């Protein structure tokens, strides 16, 4: 079934160097164009490389559209893990070894496109196992399809809790659900306050499944402490100015300001918080690393709290990738464009998803998708990314969220306390 030559298909076969080049943003477009032509060439190149057989995974991922940056992070994470597994001798069970190969399609950051592509991967490309797309919204669009066809999907980028109350049996997420992202900030604020019920909270999140879930988590925890929510607003998807909200922040003086809206939300928030000299004692946002707020806004980002699924300073490790720090080092070597910034957790969790598949295949010792599904469901492992163990609903319950604070341009873990490397700066000192 090769009716559609697929452009990115060969990346599983491509030598390391080539796929690095493919995701150099400026060259990306050119190489995408050329890849159809290059496919046959690459094919011959791989024949001699390994004797392992191939396990084909499918993924619709955002290569264009508003999630493209994070989509490419995820793809890089997948590719890095695949290469690592290959270098380590592949997935081994029975007497054979297998390498992963991923068929990618571009979902353009659009849900209906993602669902269509998932159908295509399953029906036309006969893919039996899927890796997730980027963002909760896309995962929500694709999960019903994989569920319908009973295709196990391990996803790494869809965190919304609403994914895990549908009774899905074939959906597994290695990351923590999003209501936990900033909930620990609420706890921190409560710890710092003399009387938690006096704490005023302001919430401004994007109007998408992921961020709305963050909001739900914050509101729940705030309710637990009986805090007052003084601002509760949604950001538009094409956000470029949030001074209207920040004006209210100035008036109502919340003790905790929560902002979430992917990279653009982070960028806009940090910039305008600096400009308008917002002096809330605690500001917590998501996607700091993805938006590179330190690099872009420097001192304006000081003392801002950033939630993260993973940090390279954590003490997790596994036999394949080594420690978290080692993962970061090797990944930067393989993908030099990340050299000057910290590796976003979106990359790490994508690699972890592939790792879950490797582990599950080896335990199942079978290519039967039901057996693999059951093996995934039984996963209980430690990785460089953290513990992975799925609840009956498919979300990972073995790994906490981490809160880091930007202290003098460095991301330092400040919560939860068992992983904290630095004390919290409170109240934050605005620039």
């Amino acid at each position, binding site marked *: 079934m090769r009716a559609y030559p697929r452009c990115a298909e060969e990346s599983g076969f491509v030598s390391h160097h080539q796929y690095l080049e493919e995701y150099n943003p400026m060259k990306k477009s050119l190489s995408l164009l050329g890849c159809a032509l290059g496919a046959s060439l690459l094919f011959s190149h791989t024949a001699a490389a390994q004797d392992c057989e191939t396990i084909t995974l499918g993924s619709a991922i955002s290569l*264009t559209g508003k999630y493209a940056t994070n989509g490419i992070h995820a793809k890089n994470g997948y590719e890095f893990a695949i290469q690592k597994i290959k270098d380590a001798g592949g997935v081994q069970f029975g007497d054979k070894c297998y390498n992963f190969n991923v068929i990618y399609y571009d979902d*353009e950051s659009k*849900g209906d496109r993602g669902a269509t592509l998932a159908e295509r991967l399953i*029906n036309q490309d006969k893919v039996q196992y899927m890796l997730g797309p980027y963002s909760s919204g896309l995962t929500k669009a694709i999960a019903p399809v994989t569920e*319908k066809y009973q295709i196990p999907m391990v996803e790494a980028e869809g965190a919304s809790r609403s994914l895990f109350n549908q009774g899905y049996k074939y959906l597994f997420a290695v990351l923590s659900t999003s209501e936990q992202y900033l909930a620990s900030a609420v706890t921190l604020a409560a710890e710092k306050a003399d009387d938690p019920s006096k704490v005023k909270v302001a919430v401004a999140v994007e*109007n998408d*499944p992921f961020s*709305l879930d963050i909001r739900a988590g914050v509101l729940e925890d705030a309710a637990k402490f009986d805090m007052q929510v003084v601002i509760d607003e*949604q950001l538009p998807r094409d956000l470029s100015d949030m001074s209207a909200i920040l004006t209210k922040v100035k008036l109502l003086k919340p003790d905790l300001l929560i902002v979430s809206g992917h990279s653009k939300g982070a960028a806009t928030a940090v910039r305008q918080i600096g400009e308008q000299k917002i002096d809330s004692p605690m500001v917590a946002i998501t996607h700091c690393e993805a938006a590179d707020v330190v690099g872009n806004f420097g001192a304006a980002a000081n003392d801002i709290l950033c939630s993260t699924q993973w940090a390279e300073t954590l003490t997790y490790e596994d036999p394949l990738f080594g420690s978290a720090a080692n993962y970061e080092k090797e990944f930067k070597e393989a993908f030099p464009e990340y050299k000057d910034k910290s590796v976003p957790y979106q990359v790490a969790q994508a690699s972890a998803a592939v790792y879950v598949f490797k582990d599950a295949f080896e335990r199942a010792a079978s290519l039967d998708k039901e057996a693999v599904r059951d093996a995934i469901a039984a996963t209980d492992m430690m990785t460089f990314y953290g513990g992975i163990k799925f609840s009956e609903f498919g979300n990972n319950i073995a790994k906490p969220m981490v809160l880091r604070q930007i202290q003098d341009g460095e991301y330092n873990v400040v919560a939860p306390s068992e992983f904290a490397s630095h004390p919290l700066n409170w109240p934050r000192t605005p620039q």
Partner: protein
Amino acid sequence: MKKTLFYAVLLLITIAAPYLFPDYGTQLATLWLMIIVALTWDMTGGQMGYNSLGNIFFYGTGMYVAALITIGMVHPIGEYTDASRSELMLFTEGQYFTGLIVGSLGAGLFCALSAVIIGYITFGLRGPYFAIGTLGVAIAAGELVSNWDWVGGGQGIQLPVYPGDLDTGKVVFYFLFAITGVALFIFLKWLYSTRFGAAINAIRDDEEKAEAMGIHTMRYKLTAWALSAFFVGVAGGISAFQLIHFEPLETAYQTINLGIFMVVCVLLGGKGTLWGPVVGAILFHVIKEVTWNYLLGWQWVALGALIVVTVVYFQDGIMGWLMHNKPEWFGMRVEKKEQEGTA
């Protein structure tokens, strides 16, 4: 005789397609969706001269109405759409199919009604103002729905997965779209042969003259739009079930996707003809799928270029071009009496 044979063959292909190409079931269903939206757009755009950029409003509204009817018959909607709910809310097979049928038809009716209400205002606008005004309606609707928590807001809505066997499910959706499409085609073939058809053509060619002759222009415009909205609404309703999960801004009220595609399909195939939208939709769908596969990353640029080139250089479309260059194919002879053979 020849014509009967032609239609018989087409019908046969339509029925056989999902069995011949089982792997392409979803794409074939999407093709029918494109045909439906193109044909309905042409009702007002091609036949009546009112170029709407907002017909996607009916698609999105259809999705929501169908979903809300289905959910509302079984569960409280507000609880169902609450993302943080923890218990499962399920549907039985009977509830699913009742929802699918009642929801889609209800969506059609609701859209027809809303077309009358919106049209009553927008049909006072002419030319580009009508296009911009309808586009505005669609964008505003998407924005407002995305802020409306009761229907799920930016989270969107999740419908149950098709309860039966997978392959049957695919075929079922294909035929739901195909039957709607064929019904629409037959309906339009009849409609365009009536006095009503002539009247909306008159509105297109010279609305002032039509008014001066006492044609109920507003009534006909509203009727045409309502009929077109009905079919788009039904198609939207079916899409909601096919897609299972949808959200307001990018799936339901997708102004710059399907909302524009339907116009391009019609322009490509030929405005104001019965077959033009069908041919255009098929061609466009094929071009789109091919560019999506071969020009990964550049597909949108290619599509934008296709729109510009079609609009600027090839506005009569394929059918228009054929009619101009091969009039004999359409039985158009100057002396002959049979003149309405444009189909």
